[in-house]
């Protein structure tokens, strides 16, 4: 139980700090530290993302950074894609899914490196992070 709380805290701090989203941290934490299967970790991560995104969206909304109608359309019209993605995930083996997820992690690592290099020596970043 303590591991779960630590994963949540660590993922939250890193997410808030670097602007990467919960899922890319929850999933490997749940697989490597807690020992869930890739399928269980992805499913559990999705539920864990809901409160994080909700609080983040409420804060951003206060700053005037949310276009509500667009967010609602993207969110509600995602249903078909979501169903397809989950069905596809469950049709794949754990190994195939893990390999795909590892590729996603490498991509996000590359993005972080690129962003860090682009920002150069600028240490103060005013952007509110949290959605990626």
């Amino acid at each position, binding site marked *: 139980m303590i591991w779960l709380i630590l994963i949540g805290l660590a993922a*939250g*701090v890193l997410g808030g700090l670097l602007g990467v989203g919960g899922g890319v941290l929850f999933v490997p934490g749940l697989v490597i530290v807690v020992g869930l299967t890739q399928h269980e970790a992805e499913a559990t*991560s999705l539920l864990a993302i809901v409160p994080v995104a909700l609080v983040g969206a409420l804060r951003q909304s206060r700053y005037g*950074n949310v276009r509500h109608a667009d967010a609602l359309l*993207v969110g509600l019209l995602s249903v078909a894609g*979501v169903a397809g993605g*989950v069905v596809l995930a469950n049709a794949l083996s754990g190994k195939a899914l893990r390999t795909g997820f*590892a590729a996603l992690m490498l991509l996000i690592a590359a993005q972080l490196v690129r962003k860090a290099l682009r920002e150069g020596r600028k240490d103060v970043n005013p952007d509110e992070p949290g959605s990626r």
Partner: protein
Amino acid sequence: MRIPSERALKLMAIGTAAGLFSGLFGVGGGTVIVPLLVVWLGYAEREATGTSLAAIVFIAAFAAAVQGAYGNVHVLDALLVGIPAVGGVLFGTWLQQRVHVRALSLLFAAVLVASAVELLLE
């Protein structure tokens, strides 16, 4: 029936792509939504981030519900991870103004690469 505007079609395409990505990988989908809002709809980065977060509330909830039908969701684990994460995000955002984000980004990229290798070796 009214023909949907080009803008509505773009939003629908973004929702569908993000939904697929989210359902497949168990992530929110911001990696897909933010750049598409910027490139297709001319959003500023910060608005794209905020709007993406609000859309993700729905996307992740839908995807968790469908995964729940497969019996894959560990509800208690999700709450034990998700609720402390909310506090973590608030602290991380506060910390952002006070530490060298650039060095941390590079360090964390290394952690991601190491974790990816670990997943591949599982």
